């Protein structure tokens, strides 16, 4: 046997997407029965269509003991599914994983925290959920409390904690686990910079000094680079590259930039105006594809204008990751170079892209581009951070609450 601690062979995970319930609600027995009954009456081909979706397909890799491995990839590339399969939350459809050691997963901080219980009680609860015994927790209790920095509020129910405190306590518990394999998903995107540094340090210590294996998924490329020597790049459920971090990261960024930077190669001169380039920068003018939610973004358009017309405008729409329209804006007239600024605190976390077209309203479409210039928003500590599992829309509603 080699010294591989994790060996993944031909791993696949299939989901069946059923189109009968567009709302995505739960299955009810009465529906199943009534569908079966309908199925008898109708012919076979009229049954609702079902679609297969392979979230992971033929994934192979090996991880050696004491390695810290990063997993990167775009949303929907299969990162979360891979982690779920690795941590035994869900069963694979094909393939095999062999692991030599206990696995603890940190898929989301604060899982299993009960709002009614105090910080002290939650340390025990969370520890047990993550696989620690009471004796083990008791032994490490002081260390955990010290790491979290919430000593003063130990006997307060966690529902009264701020989201920062909540995350701190949760991470502190998780950081003191002693499994052979630690699986971490994006926890570092939360909390203040200082705490993030502390967490990274802790994870570094875990993998380098204690010889544990860490599997780390994050959007934070800098953190991945710092922590992981090797990296897996997932693309459409398959391993696109598994190599030294710097190589994998640069490939990932290259892909990402290619998708983010729209450039029109063959410009049609017969049209009045054509979009040449679309790209995003921060306010300092640096090209970027990933923004924090509280960062201002600048969307640049470069046009080739062949025939000036008073009537032509540029109309743009932001799309979310499901290609639903989020919001639109229209220029008044055209110029060779145009920019619009938006944010901070406008879009919520997620992946977005841009629809853009030049038109003269109600008369004709001059040039149209669909779903270009991909970019991502990361939530680095908004009030909605704690609801990251839920869909709370695409934009922050900037409201004023009046209490009477």
């Amino acid at each position, binding site marked *: 046997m080699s010294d591989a601690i994790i060996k993944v062979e031909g791993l696949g995970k299939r*989901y069946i997407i059923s189109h009968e319930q567009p709302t995505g609600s*739960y*299955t*009810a*027995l*009465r529906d*199943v029965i009534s569908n079966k009954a309908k199925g008898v009456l109708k012919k076979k081909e009229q049954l609702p269509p079902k679609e297969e979706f392979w979230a992971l397909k033929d994934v192979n890799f090996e991880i050696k003991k004491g390695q810290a491995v990063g997993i990167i990839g775009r949303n929907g590339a299969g990162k979360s599914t891979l982690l*779920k*399969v*690795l*941590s*035994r*939350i*869900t*069963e*694979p*459809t*094909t*393939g*095999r*994983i*062999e*692991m*030599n*050691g*206990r*696995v603890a*997963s940190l*898929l*989301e901080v604060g*899982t*299993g925290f*009960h709002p*009614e*219980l105090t910080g002290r*009680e939650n340390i*025990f*609860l969370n520890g*047990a*959920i*993550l*696989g*620690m*015994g*009471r004796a083990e927790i008791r032994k490490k209790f002081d260390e955990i409390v010290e790491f979290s920095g919430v000593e003063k509020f130990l006997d307060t129910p966690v529902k009264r904690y701020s989201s920062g405190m909540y995350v701190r306590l949760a991470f502190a518990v998780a950081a003191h686990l002693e499994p*052979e394999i630690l699986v971490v998903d994006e926890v570092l995107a939360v909390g203040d910079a200082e705490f993030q540094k502390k967490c990274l340090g802790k994870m570094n210590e875990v993998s380098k000094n204690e010889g544990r294996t860490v599997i780390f998924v994050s959007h934070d490329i800098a953190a991945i680079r710092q922590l992981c020597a090797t990296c897996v790049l997932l693309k459409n459920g398959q391993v696109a590259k598994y190599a030294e971090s710097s190589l994998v990261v640069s490939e990932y960024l290259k892909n990402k930039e290619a998708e983010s930077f729209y450039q029109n190669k063959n410009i049609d001169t017969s049209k009045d105006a054509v979009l040449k380039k679309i790209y995003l920068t921060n306010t300092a003018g640096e090209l970027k594809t990933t923004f924090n939610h509280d960062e201002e973004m600048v969307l640049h358009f470069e046009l080739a204008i062949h025939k000036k017309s008073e009537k032509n405008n540029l109309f743009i729409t932001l799309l979310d990751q499901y290609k639903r329209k989020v919001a639109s804006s229209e220029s008044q007239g055209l110029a060779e170079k145009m920019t619009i600024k938006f944010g901070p605190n406008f879009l919520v976390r997620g992946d977005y892209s841009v629809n853009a077209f030049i038109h003269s309203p109600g008369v004709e479409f001059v040039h149209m581009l669909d779903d270009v210039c991909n970019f991502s928003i990361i939530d680095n500590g908004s009030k909605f951070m704690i609801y990251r*599992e839920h869909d709370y829309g695409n934009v922050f509603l900037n409201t004023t609450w009046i209490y009477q």
Partner: protein
Amino acid sequence: MDHRIIIEPGRSEKNYWKDLWRYRELFYILSWRDVKVKYKQTVLGVVWAVLRPLLTMIVFTFVFGRMAGMGAQSTVPYAIIVFAGMLPWNFFSISLTECSNSLVGNTNLITKVYFPRMIIPASSVITSFIDFFISFAILILLFIVYGYMPPVEIIYMPLFWIFAFLASFGPGLYLTALNVKYRDFRYIIPFIVQFGLFISPVGFTTETMVQKIPSDWQWVYYLNPMVGVIDGFRWCIIKDTPNPMLHYPFYISLGVTLFLVWLSIYQFRKMEKNFADMI
């Protein structure tokens, strides 16, 4: 290394029960959490646990005892006869309800962490033990009020308590798994609880019942696991009750219970690996 894990589709784990044992700490803590949360926030938590059996008993005593004139031939106060049936019945209905809703109520745990899923329904039953203790205290109070001395058979009560636990845990386990897949199963549970109350010897006794059923059909009555449980409790609490364990129909109830436990564990294990995807 001692923790070798192999993940494969459809692989039933060799060390399933060992794993369950390894996670016993989680079982303690989840039970403790459920108990704590149940009685922490509500002053009514405890009051409710007292009121519920007490009020039901009063109603039953009044309706069946006074108006229908049942239990008149017995030397034992009718209230105690009813309460001896009520005790296991309430335990059964509360555990069944808690158990059936347990998985769906812990969605966030199931989709985020691995542990043997059976821990959740098992620990949810624990809270009903607390209610059981409270009811038991009321029973003792009734003994004192009526100046009633229970027979020595009362020491066998824990046996029937385990029986009651199995009778509720079995169906509860299956129902909670089905509840994950088909959410409308939760509407079935109140029905089972309500319907079961009338076919179980809570307001009446098995002796009065069997007199009215043709002997060829008595086995149907015993298919209800709670018949065995409640008869057992009555035997422990009420003087001069025949020992149900000496009559074969008791073993029909026990057999059905054990079969349901086996079936539920089998089905649960088959379904549990996909809970995270369905829930």
